[in-house]
């Protein structure tokens, strides 16, 4: 069975539960900056990096479009393809908002994905660690964190001294 991979440990269980319940092909949780927190289904770091960049861009565009049209950002987006469909949603937590992207085929449906996405959001909001205040995110640290989170997902990064996951830089 394929497992989810998480750059931050608190993401793994809720994400795995979502994947098991919704029967999706791919799932990705990321920070709005494009920094990946957890993934399922991807086998190459470059694909994760591309998906994160695209998801962050789409989410930002949709947010602005929602503000223009509806006075508030759109929080969910859905696109249907010939065989695969994608859903992008915003997960709100005490530590800020995250972007969730998932791709699914005939094994699932938009209705199921929306139902289990709501559950995923609740679970993530319950387990999210408190925000750590730190210096503003600089371009250099963003680049470093992006590279490190990808390396952690694909098993190329060292763990923290206590044996756990090395935390990523604090983000606003």
């Amino acid at each position, binding site marked *: 069975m394929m497992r989810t991979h998480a750059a931050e440990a608190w993401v793994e269980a809720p994400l795995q539960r979502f994947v098991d319940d919704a029967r999706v092909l791919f799932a990705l949780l990321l920070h709005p900056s494009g920094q990946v927190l957890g993934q399922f289904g991807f086998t190459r770091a470059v694909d994760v990096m591309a998906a994160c960049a695209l998801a962050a861009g789409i989410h930002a565009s949709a947010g602005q479009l929602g503000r223009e049209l509806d006075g508030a950002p759109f929080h969910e987006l859905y696109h249907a393809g010939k065989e695969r469909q994608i859903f992008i949603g915003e997960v709100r937590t005490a530590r800020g908002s995250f972007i969730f992207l998932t791709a699914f085929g005939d094994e*699932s*449906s*938009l*209705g*199921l994905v*929306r*139902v289990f996405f709501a559950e995923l959001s609740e679970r993530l909001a319950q387990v999210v660690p408190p925000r750590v205040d730190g210096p503003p995110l600089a371009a250099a640290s963003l680049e470093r964190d992006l590279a490190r989170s990808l390396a952690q997902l694909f098993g190329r990064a060292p763990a923290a001294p206590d044996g756990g996951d090395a935390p990523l830089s604090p983000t606003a």
Partner: protein
Amino acid sequence: MSSPFEDVLATLIRQRGVLGCLVVGESDGIVVDANVQVGVSEAAVAALAAALYRRARLSSQSAGLGRVTFLQLEAERGHVCAVGREGLVLVTLAEPRAHIGLIRGAMLQSVEALA
């Protein structure tokens, strides 16, 4: 805004012990129209019942049994019944005391309206 399924749903909800009835897209699991009691999680029931019906339909076809005419799930605290046609599924939730025979008859009559 009224939908073409209002009458069908109104007929079913009047049956004794019926907690709710919904018309759902079979492929996307999204509610088209619904008439449910307060406390019924409409979106979740729709998505899961549509997935259940779809699997049952595919299983029946694979087994060479033809199309699914009526699907009934009996649970500890009630029943989920489903009939489908033309990509839509009519789902009814009922209490254990409900008369499933009457509900089944009403649903099979109503399924014509899904076409």
